[in-house]
C-alpha cells in the first residue's frame, strides 16, 4: 500500500492508531517511572525514549509525538511529582522527529529497515532532541516559569545527550529486531 506524503507526515489515523498511541503513552509513562537511571534532577537515562521510535515505526510521526508528549504528562501524573509542561512539549517535538524516519522509505511493518534507514533515523533523532530540548523546552521554561535558564540549559544538555544516545544505541538494534520479526516472505521468489 502506497502512502501519500501527508499520510507519511501525519500518520494514518484509525482506531488502531488511537489504541497504539494510548498503549505507547502508557508504556512511556511506566518506563519513565521505573525503567531509568537518574543523571541529574529532572532528567534521567531512561529507556522510555525508545517508545516514540516504535510508535513512529508502526503508526507514523504524529502518533509518536503524541505518545511521547502525553506519556510525559501521564508520567508526571502517576509519579506525582508535579507538572512540567515545558518538558512535555519538548518531548512532543523530539518524539515527532524520532518517528519521522518512516517518511524516508523505511517500513518496519513490511520488514524494510536497511543501514541507510538507520543512519537517517540517527540523524533525525539528534536533530529532534536538539530542537525539542535545546530550543522548545528552554523557551517555554522562560516564558512560563521565567525560571533561571542556566539550570535548564544544564538539564537540557543532559537530556539531549542521554535521550539521543538511548534513541540511537538502544533504538537501532531494536528496530532491526522488529523489522526482522515482521519481515514476510523475504526468501520467497515468484515463479
Amino acid at each position, binding site marked *: 500500500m502506497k502512502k501519500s506524503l501527508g499520510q507519511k507526515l501525519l500518520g494514518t489515523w484509525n482506531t488502531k492508531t488511537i489504541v497504539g498511541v494510548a*498503549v505507547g503513552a502508557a508504556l512511556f509513562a511506566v518506563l519513565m517511572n521505573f525503567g531509568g537511571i537518574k543523571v541529574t534532577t529532572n532528567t534521567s537515562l531512561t529507556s522510555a525514549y525508545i517508545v516514540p521510535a516504535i510508535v513512529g515505526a508502526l503508526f507514523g510521526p504524529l502518533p509518536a509525538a503524541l505518545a511521547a508528549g502525553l506519556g510525559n504528562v501521564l508520567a508526571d501524573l502517576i509519579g506525582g511529582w508535579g507538572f512540567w509542561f515545558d518538558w512535555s512539549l519538548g518531548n512532543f517535538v523530539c518524539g515527532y522527529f524520532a518517528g519521522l524516519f518512516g517518511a524516508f522509505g523505511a517500513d518496519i511493518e513490511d520488514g524494510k529497515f536497511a543501514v541507510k534507514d538507520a543512519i537517517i533515523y540517527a540523524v533525525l533523532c539528534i536533530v529532534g532532541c536538539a530542537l525539542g530540548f535545546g530550543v522548545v523546552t528552554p523557551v517555554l521554561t522562560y516564558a512560563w516559569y521565567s525560571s533561571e535558564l542556566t539550570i535548564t540549559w544544564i538539564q537540557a544538555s543532559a537530556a539531549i545527550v542521554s535521550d539521543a544516545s538511548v534513541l540511537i544505541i538502544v533504538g537501532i538494534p531494536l528496530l532491526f529486531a522488529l523489522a526482522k520479526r515482521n519481515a514476510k516472505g523475504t526468501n520467497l521468489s515468484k515463479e
Partner: protein
Amino acid sequence: MDDKLFITLVPGNTFLDRLTGKTKTRLFFLFIFMLVATWDIRVIIPCFVVSVIGLLSIKPDKKKNIAITIFVLLMNVFNLFLVWFIEPDYGLKMCGGSTVLFQFTDYFIVTSESLWYFGARLFKFMASFFFSLTFIQCITPSELAAGLHSIFVPYKICMVVSLAFRYIPDITRDFTNIKISMQTRGMELDSKKTKVGTRLKQYVLILIPLIITSFDRVGNIANGMDLRGFGKKKDKTYYAEHEDTKADKYLAIVVWILLACFIALVVKKTFFPGPYEVWCPWCL
C-alpha cells in the same frame, strides 16, 4: 511496585470523589494554569492552602503520600540549592533588591530577597504538586476522559488518555513480571553491583518482550472498539459522567470566578508587567 502508583479505578466516597469528572478536571486545570502563570505569593498561598485541604479531604493512604511528599520536597530544595549555587544574588533579578543577611565568601551571599523568591517558588511547586496528587487520587480514567471532553478536547484524544490511563497498571504488572523472571534467570539489577552500561543493556533485554506483549494487544483492543462502533459518529457521551449534584452547581460558579482570576492574571502579566517578576513586600 504497584503500590507506588497513584491510580484509582473505583470512585471513592468523599466530597471530591462524588463530584462529576467535569468539575474535577476544570478545577484542576484552572488551579494548575493559575500557578504556572503567577509568581505572586498573595495568589500562591491561598492556592497552597486549598490544595492541602483538598488532599486531606480525600483521606488518602498516609504512608504512600508522605513518602512521595518527602521525596518531592527534597528534590525541590535541592533544585533551589542549585539555583543559589549558580547565582547567589538571584533575588536582585527577581525581586529587585539585595539585602545581605550573611555571607560565606564575596560570591556566596545569602540575601533576604533570594530567600523570599525561594520561598515563593517552593510554595508554588508544592501547591501544584499537591493539586496533582489530589486530582490523581480522586479521578478514574473514564471520568478523566469525560472531564477532558468537557473542556473541548476532541474525543479521540480523550479516548487516548483514558485508554493509556487504563493500561498503565497492566503494563506495570507485565514489566514487574518480566523483570522478576529475568532475575530468576540470574540477571543482576542491583545498582551497587552492576555498572551503568550493563544495567542499560539489561533494561533492553526487559524492553523487547515488554514492547512485543504491549503492542500485540493493540489489534485486539482496536477490533473490540471497532465492533462497538467507535469513531462512527462525530461526538460521544460518557457513561461515567453522572448528572450534576448540588455541589457541582455551586462549584460551577467557583470555576467561573477562577477563570476570571486567571484571565486577569494573564492580562496583567502580559500588558502591565511590573519591573520585577516576584512581588516582594519590602522592596517595591
